[in-house]
């Protein structure tokens, strides 16, 4: 396909789905700047793979998968851990919306361990099935159920205590 065609189609997809995908990234990491980085990482990869993915009509799922996996994998890569003080990835205080504007639920969600948070986001916000969530996060269905149960339990507990 021509570069122009790729650009036009890709731009149309980004314009249509960026808001939703960006919010997924934000829900996963709790930091808008980090969310923008995650989204850009995913969209760059999507652009490269666009000819293949546009045929399968699977661009959004592919991008979402990269977002949730990238955030997981960031902490798994040894040499990523060597980096320090860059772009808020070292655990600096989340930026974006002022704290008072974020709901107690969102705060509680961000306090969940990473995988529990992602399971809750995928299962209970985006409505993915157990199997879909398992594939998305590359974990077993049993682990999805376990994280889901624990995550919801901790959310309830946190919100009750507040």
């Amino acid at each position: 396909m021509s570069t122009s065609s790729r650009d036009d189609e890709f731009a149309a997809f980004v314009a249509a789905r960026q808001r939703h995908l960006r919010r997924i990234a934000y829900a996963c990491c709790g930091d808008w700047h980090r969310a923008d980085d995650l989204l850009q990482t995913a969209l760059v990869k999507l652009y490269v793979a666009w000819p293949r993915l546009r045929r399968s009509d699977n661009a959004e799922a592919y991008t979402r998968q990269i977002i949730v996996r990238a955030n997981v994998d960031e902490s798994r890569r040894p040499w990523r851990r060597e980096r320090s003080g860059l772009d808020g990835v070292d655990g600096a205080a989340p930026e974006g919306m002022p704290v008072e504007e974020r709901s107690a639920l969102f705060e509680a969600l961000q306090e969940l361990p990473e995988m529990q948070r992602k399971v809750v986001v995928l299962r209970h916000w985006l409505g993915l099935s157990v199997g879909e969530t398992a594939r998305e996060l590359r974990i077993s269905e049993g682990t999805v159920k376990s994280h889901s149960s624990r995550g919801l339990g901790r959310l309830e507990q946190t919100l009750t205590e507040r």
Partner: protein
Amino acid sequence: MTSSRLQDEIEHSFGDGPAPRPVDAHVAAGRRALRRRRAGVASLVVVAAVGAGWAVTGPQDSGGTSGEVATDPTATPTPTPMTTPVPAGAPWTDEEGPVRYRDGVLEVRPGVVVHERIDDPYADRPSRASTALDVTYRGERQWVIAELVGAGDDDFSVGTADPSNGWASFADWVADQVDANGAGDDGWPVSLEQDQQGRVVATPGTTVLDRTDDPRLGDSFAAPRQPTGAALVVAAEDGKRYFLVWRVLDGGLNVITTPATRKLGGTFEEMLDHARAQYAGGEGLL
């Protein structure tokens, strides 16, 4: 809390944050990534053309202050000997690796041979500089990405990997590191995928010449009850033959792709034997 209520609560628990990056910026970033992936390889000539402070070689492995650009007989059909003046610098210490930064400029340790180079792989990040290199360092081929993060020359990170079948090329390895997605885009054609039931199936257009779901590659490849398999395929993407072994880890498909060259054997059984031996020896196919 019901599922639908939780869905609504999460939906309304945060807004849209600051303004998103413009669509054009994403298109431009994608184009740059595609160019890097296609161009990928920078020849030795490019390395030399960058000039002082880059690649030097000499009889010694440390402390060199001048010399010729390292030559790689496999990198260009007609390698041209070139002499590049290199500024004097501090001696290299044992603690330093194949590269370091001085005054914000990447220096390559004397004696290190640079085969390929990709400039600025992390252009989309706020680091001061970054460079990816395919080098031979102390007799070992290595892929390296150096990234200068902070204000000082010592505030940099270096990631390395052994060249392998894990990625189709140096450029693919770099692209994978840059993407940092862990989604397994190793540059090889995607010949297998999981269907809705989690079964491992060929991607559309891929021709499976042979396949087994019981390759017996040993415990070093996968735990006894983990689903594994092997196949000889003709990839839809490039029409070439590949020998694949796979395992399903935590529900996700992990495929190791190797070009089906004579080195692996002439038949599927011979390829399986080769794979078993490689994994039994701890080396694997990567």
